[in-house]
């Protein structure tokens, strides 16, 4: 199309891109696209596995309304109500403890933090986010069970989850608080509003939608944790509402328990339970994320 234009009398100022460079560029482009596709494959594969294998038990109402206490290992029936209750209770208690602490730390870092302590805090939040869940579980075990002599319980699990949730809450809240424009703070100060009230009534409401999103994501993350459950609470096949005493199930624990103590050959009862519990867990996590999105839309500050 451009033959007429590209054959001037003088040598052209711009060199053609050589074949070698074109080939290199092409290879790089292919590799980069390929690596993205490589990452999508396991995601789709895992989700397909969970849905395809888990769908068998999910539609039955007794899956959602009964526990596994009165059915045998190879008997079709029962449900995971006990595990759903356990997971939600432990997650809720964990959030009740971790969210205020995490938000206070974030407010400290954004609004007050300067000097050595702020630096140390930022650093320690980073370290805390890298602490493996099994180490958090061992710490709570050493504190709660060995040192204080209290029994293993759902509450101990919540405490371990708190350690894992705090850094996520701090990071996301901090990010949201930092993008609140300084103009808003200054306008509030100019009206004589004290700093703490400015934070509570101006800064937090502005950032709230993003913060809630971050909290829900963090909650979904910790509810999928298995390691603290193994160390800190025993498995019970019955519904247990008491978070401070006795054994309590949770969805990951059901999966692990069936895996260890039941046959999980394809087509067996244990197989259906493991993947049914997995799908239930994924659905709950998806639901929490969905609620997070909806909720942050609702409380989002109105835009001009």
């Amino acid at each position, binding site marked *: 199309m451009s033959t007429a234009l590209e054959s001037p009398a003088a040598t052209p100022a711009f060199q053609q891109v050589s074949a070698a460079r074109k080939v290199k560029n092409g290879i790089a482009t292919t590799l980069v696209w390929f690596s993205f596709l490589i990452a999508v494959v396991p995601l789709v594969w895992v989700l397909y*596995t969970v849905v395809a294998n888990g769908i068998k038990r999910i539609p039955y109402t007794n899956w959602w309304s009964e526990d596994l206490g009165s059915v045998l290992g190879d008997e079709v029936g029962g449900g995971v109500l006990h595990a759903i209750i356990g997971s939600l209770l432990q997650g809720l208690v964990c959030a009740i403890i971790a969210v205020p602490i995490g938000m206070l730390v974030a407010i400290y870092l954004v609004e007050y933090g300067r000097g050595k302590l702020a630096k140390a805090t930022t650093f320690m939040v980073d370290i805390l986010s890298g602490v493996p869940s099994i180490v958090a579980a061992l710490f709570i075990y050493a504190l709660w069970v060995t040192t204080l002599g209290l029994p293993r319980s759902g509450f101990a699990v919540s405490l371990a989850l708190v350690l894992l949730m705090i850094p996520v809450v701090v990071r996301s809240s901090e990010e949201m608080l930092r993008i609140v424009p300084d103009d808003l703070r200054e306008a509030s100060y100019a009206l*004589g509003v*004290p700093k703490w009230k400015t934070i509570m009534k101006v800064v937090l409401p502005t950032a709230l939608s993003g913060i809630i999103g971050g909290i829900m994501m963090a909650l979904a993350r910790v509810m*999928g944790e298995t390691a603290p459950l*193994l160390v800190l609470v025993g498995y019970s096949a019955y519904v247990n509402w008491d978070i401070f005493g006795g054994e309590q199930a949770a969805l990951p624990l059901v999966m692990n328990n069936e895996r260890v103590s039941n046959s999980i050959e394809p087509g067996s009862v244990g197989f259906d339970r493991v993947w049914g519990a997995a799908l239930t867990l994924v659905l709950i996590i998806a639901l929490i994320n969905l609620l997070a999105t909806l909720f942050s839309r609702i409380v989002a500050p109105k835009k001009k």
Partner: protein
Amino acid sequence: MSESSSTRTPTGDPGGRSSSAKKVPEDPISEQPASPAAQPPASEKPKKVRAGDRIFQNLTTGAGLFVVILIALIGLFLLVQAIPALTADKANFLFSHGWSTNDPGNMSFGILDLLEVTVATSVVALVIAMPVSLGIALFLTQYAPKRLSRIFAYVIDLLAAVPSIIFGLWGILVFAPAIEPFSQWINSTFSWFPLLAPGNVQPNVRGTIFTAGIVLAVMILPIITSLSREVFERTPTPHIEGALALGATRWEVIRTTVLPFGKAGYIGASMLGLGRALGETIALAVILLIPQGRDFSWSFFDGGSTFASKIAVNYSEFNNETSAGAYIAAGLVLFVLTFLVNFAARAIIGKKGD
């Protein structure tokens, strides 16, 4: 964009707390503070800090301090609980292979085997995850259409939201059987190569470090990708435009501007991924077979236990305090290990940020 400039400074404190009280003596809003003590002194003494402000500042500072102390407490508690078991240990804790803690009166355990398996799985994971996540990060920042790149990034982040026990079960029940012919082929073709020698869980090639490493790689992809992406996005536009103006192809732009700029961040991100891989628990506990015969001998087709999976698999031994102490000691080593790796990672990332 402007986030980065304001990130490291505490936000507006207009002329300090002292002057705000002086400027507005009849402050209408402070007439209903949460604590009534804030009222009277605020109007009279200019130097006085409002009680509400003081309480709030102390509260938030306390929370910050709490996090700092928490890390120290984790190390301290693990250490204190590990000492009785360590003194009862009849073997060298750091340099011996066996692990027998059933009899509290006669314990001999060492972490060398755990350390080797942990390192081996993490290395396999990192070797796979590092190039792939570099590719994804470049794809998301440089190649993907701008409108779709957010959605694609979300898809990658979804990987991080899948609970690790699901990855573990998928890995051993679905993925391992699927790649079994491939593993079998590599294992038999390259068995002369020490790292690919027949493993200690033969003839099984499913519950091996090879499988575990690949699954682990998938699990650490999102963390390496998201951090690298953040760094690559901050490549100065003038650099990119300069390269384009000189006639560089897209790959040459990346090689000459994006990669040099983002190298430190990418390495730091990979180390954070390494930290995650070292501590991954249940997925590895589900996948890795425990060999009955010989110890780990640096073949990727060996089974074994990492620090974390060893603790998770043997939680039933926690009924007795001294035996539990042995596992807590292993946990302490894991804590120190991840601490060091994360420390180094943050140092690398932080240096670039300043």
